[in-house]
């Protein structure tokens, strides 16, 4: 990605404040705080602009349908699990691995 600011700016934008304690997770090793009640896709995209690399060509993906239909939002966790992030509640300690778009590296 050419523009480093755009590369780091998250996609999702919180509009409704939520009570409940923060939920610590890591994304590519960096600690971030999710919120109680977050789905994993929300926890990631409120900190990052995408979820995963596209495995058939260059480029990244950030989910598409949010209703467990398109299967675009599967995410790799460091413990070996692969989860569909739009239907998986965030859990404290989840370690998400996104990696970089090979084109940018």
């Amino acid at each position, binding site marked *: 990605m050419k523009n480093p600011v755009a590369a780091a*700016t998250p*996609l999702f934008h919180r*509009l409704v404040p939520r009570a409940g304690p923060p939920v610590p997770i890591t994304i590519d090793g960096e600690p971030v705080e999710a919120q*109680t*009640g977050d789905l994993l896709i929300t926890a990631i995209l409120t900190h990052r*602009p995408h979820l995963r690399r596209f495995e058939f060509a260059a480029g990244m*993906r950030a989910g598409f349908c*949010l*209703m467990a239909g398109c299967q675009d939002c*599967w995410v790799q966790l460091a413990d070996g699990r692969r989860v569909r992030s739009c239907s998986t509640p965030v859990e404290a300690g989840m370690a998400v691995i996104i990696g970089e778009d090979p084109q940018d590296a």
Partner: protein
Amino acid sequence: MLDVAKRDPAIVVVGAGPAGLRAVETLAAAGLRPILIDEAPRPGGQIYRQPPVGAERPARDLYGFEAPKAVALHRLLDRLGDRVDHRPDTLAWSLLENRLDLLSAGSFDQIDFDRVILATGAMDRVLPFAGWTTPGVFTLGAAQIALKAQGVAIGRRVALVGAGPLLPLVAHQYLKAGAEIAAVLDVTPLAPKIRHGLGLAWQPATLLKGLWYTAHITLAGHPIRFGVKSLRVEGGARVEALVWTDGRGREHRVACDAVGASFGLRSEAQLADLAGCRFTFDAVTRQWQPERDPEGRSSRADVYLAGDGAAIGGADVAELAGERTALTLLADLGRPVDASRVALLDRRLARQRRFRAALEAAYPFPGHLLDAVPDDEMVCRCEGITVGRLRDTAKVREAHEMNRLKAFTRIGMGRCQGRVCGQAAAEILARTLASEPAAVGRLRGNPPVKPIPVKETL
């Protein structure tokens, strides 16, 4: 089969949306104990989807005018208690003969049913356009779910694109929640909406709500632009702008960092397909639908269909159809049913059908988007199969039928099982051959209908 005579029949309902919930309510009232399966953790289905634990909000904020209906449906299972065997977080991933294959919290299970009601609902109808796989482009439904289930907007500055009544509703909801809107674009023309306005008055409350949302977003400075001819997302790694052509061919560009775009709804009919139900082509919505008689029967005597999973009717129809179909099932079992209730439901459903016909006419299928999509654009977002690949294969290899096209290109074989690409691929094939989607056939489904852990399937 086990000694059926000595036990109550095993009745399974798949889908805990408005259709499935009203169905189990009716079955339980007749003294049966239906099994209700849904992959979601909480009942409600699409429109009345409940946020995950910890993200709850007042019903009025989430469902607006529809809050009382949503709350009534959410409480229905509590009220019925153990008269319904509710199995949330459970995916029905296959249906062959009389057996449903289930996956719940990583463990596999099977149910043998005597009769099943499929109330599997719908998802957004997706059509490709230039840049539609860029991170930050979501369906319109996804834009709504982000807000309703999570209290987030899909971006800081969002463009919304649609071809149906969901568009003004989502735009209204985003504005109300304080989101910044870049544009509200309808790819269908305005004229048919005016022409069919009278037909829409068959459901005056629904019509008024639609007009209210439209008025609100117009007053907020975002009038809907109708008749959009083509769409192109700019930005490679993320969305930077949406470029669109208006009805007169003029190009416009709006800066934005997210797009919510889809073009009507599409039934989730995979289980009906695996069950061997007969499908017919619906010329209005241009999709293959499982055949359903007005009483809710499919072509298979022990399989019933209710709600948007067999034909798009919306939430109120789904509630009516769920109850109506359960009454049909009871009558088929030889149980007594209240004939006056049946007559009332049939009258209401008939009224709704007239409304739906006008609504479909007001939002004609936006096939022009497919003529505008470039060859190098993906149609399959699972595996990256391009529009050009389909067009070439149709011409060069004489793939004149969808399953032949699939054999050559793998279209419809990715993780989503053709949910996202299937209808677009059929339209592209038909357009390339100067034919009709009815003539190119339909993709046959295979289990699992959604990905399941691989080792256990062996």
